[in-house]
């Protein structure tokens, strides 16, 4: 039996295992539902941002300053927002990757669950009796997670594309598809899905406790970007004032994946897209390496 036969068996078995518990519809349900919600919210926001400035101000102020003048500092803030968002390309990128915000977290959690379930459900013994090589099991789970990430990307991108096209085209801004920056961000989104799935497998192999791993990954993902932004803002204000200090927030995985897919600058000092990709790849490789090492060395039972 060749190593690739072994691997194929593990992958097929992992897919079967996933299908035969409630996990698959919980994940796919959450994936589709959150994408739908985010696509609609994104669509409404996009249409607002693409309105002429006067209308934009009306909507943003909910008519509160009806007749009266809007305070100048507030008006200038609104103008800043409007300028950065008033671009069909920017809105197309945002809309077509509306699936990303929660989708990436979900594929990461899927990777974590694929590994930690073996320990949470005490099936590790059975699994490693059938496939004694730990590396083969991890590789099989990795391939499974990547395959599922591709499917998840495909389905959710279809949803956000459809809804995005309806909103944009309906508002008379065309689809923006065919513009390389837009298409590329949709494809880079696929890379992000794959990398977060790999990240999840490594994270799960390293942390192993299902609850601890899923909760800490969720916090890292959801709060990580904001925390990194705030931290490097502080550093920039009080320690070392330089644009590159702000750029360092790309070391937060959640920031890295946003930087990777965004063709326009996300924040002051935001590094080029490839830096985001490199950071994400580095994390994935690090966690897989450490996770595999831990699993190879440890006793099952």
């Amino acid at each position: 039996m060749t190593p690739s036969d072994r691997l194929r068996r593990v992958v097929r078995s992992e897919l079967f295992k996933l299908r035969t518990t409630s996990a698959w519809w919980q994940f796919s349900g959450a994936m589709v539902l959150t994408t739908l919600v985010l696509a609609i919210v994104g669509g409404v926001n996009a249409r607002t941002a693409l309105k002429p400035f006067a209308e934009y101000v009306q909507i943003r102020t909910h008519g509160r300053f009806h007749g009266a003048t809007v305070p100048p500092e507030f008006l200038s803030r609104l103008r800043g927002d409007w300028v950065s968002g008033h671009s069909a390309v920017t809105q197309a990128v945002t809309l077509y990757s509306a699936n990303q915000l929660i989708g990436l977290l979900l594929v990461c959690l899927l990777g974590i669950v694929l590994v930690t379930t073996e320990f949470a459900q005490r099936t590790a013994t059975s699994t490693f009796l059938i496939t004694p090589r730990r590396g083969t099991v991890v590789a099989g789970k990795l391939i499974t997670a990547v395959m599922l990430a591709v499917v998840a990307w495909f389905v959710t991108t279809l949803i956000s594309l459809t809804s995005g096209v309806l909103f944009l085209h309906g508002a008379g801004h065309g689809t923006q598809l065919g513009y390389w920056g837009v298409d590329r961000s949709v494809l880079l989104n696929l890379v992000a899905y794959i990398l977060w799935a790999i990240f999840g497998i490594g994270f799960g192999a390293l942390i192993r406790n299902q609850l601890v791993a899923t909760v800490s990954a969720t916090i890292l993902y959801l709060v990580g970007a904001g925390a990194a932004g705030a931290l490097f803002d502080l550093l920039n204000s009080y320690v070392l004032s330089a644009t590159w200090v702000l750029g360092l927030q790309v070391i937060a995985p959640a920031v890295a994946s946003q930087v990777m897919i965004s063709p326009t600058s996300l924040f002051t000092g935001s590094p080029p897209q490839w830096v985001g990709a490199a950071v994400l790849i580095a994390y994935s490789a690090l966690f897989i390496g450490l996770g595999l090492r831990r699993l190879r060395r440890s006793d099952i039972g």
Partner: protein
Amino acid sequence: MATEHRIVVDDLTKRYGDVVAVDQLSFSVEPGRVTGFLGPNGAGKTTTMRMVLGLVQPTSGRATIGGRSYLEIDEPTQVVGAVLEASSAHRGRTGHNHLRAACIAAGLPMTRADEVLDLVGLAAAADRQFRGYSLGMRQRLGIATAMLGDPGVLILDEPANGLDPEGIRWMRELLRGLAHQGRTVLVSSHLLTEMQALADNVVIVANGSLVRQGSVAEVVASMSHAARVEVRTPEPERLTELLVRAGGVVETGPTLIVAGLTEQAVGDAAFTAGIPLHRLATQQADLEEVFLELTHGKAGIR
């Protein structure tokens, strides 16, 4: 099948920090019979079995099955089947799907799942979720999983745990049948009465070390000093005095129970002193007594 399915444990040691769970243990397990792996709780049985199965890495030493370590066996499920813990299936998956997933991972046809379900008598519960299984059903599912690849070697860790008497009888018949077909069967237990009815051979461990290995009859016989002599006489006081002087330990009562002297020695002493005997018999030690004696003072949680 002979050497191909022999389990050899060679100078195996496993340390967990300061605890030596298994201490330079060596023994072998032959095909065609049931070998009982006996020892009090904490003796190192589970750790030894997990090392044989490549799940726990030995600190030193080696364990082989048919001359190869578990990791070196090309299709391990077709050589070795193991039942290690009762709860080892996903709670939300049905027994049937648990077996099917194992078939896929092991490269076996899905039909094996149905066959082993019939073998262990679990077909009726096959499509229920594992979380609803009783301990006995879980043990049966474990055995079914172990039997998927029709292996020549079976390793079972305390399989009788949680089984009712009927289940224990079923397990005994099954394992004896499998050994009769020429398979190697290694079963651990701390329940000795069960082993006496099941095992042909025993490997007794305590504190991670081998205490004795051999056929049940040999091990029991080797403990001749564990045997005791029953004597009945109309003159118990005189005989007791005599036997104690001869080095025996005597329990008095309607029947004297003498330890430390053979039947022959007791009979000769009585004859020489002219004491009539109404009964003289050796109580054969059973495995339980041998076990308690061998592991005396070594039991207990470490």
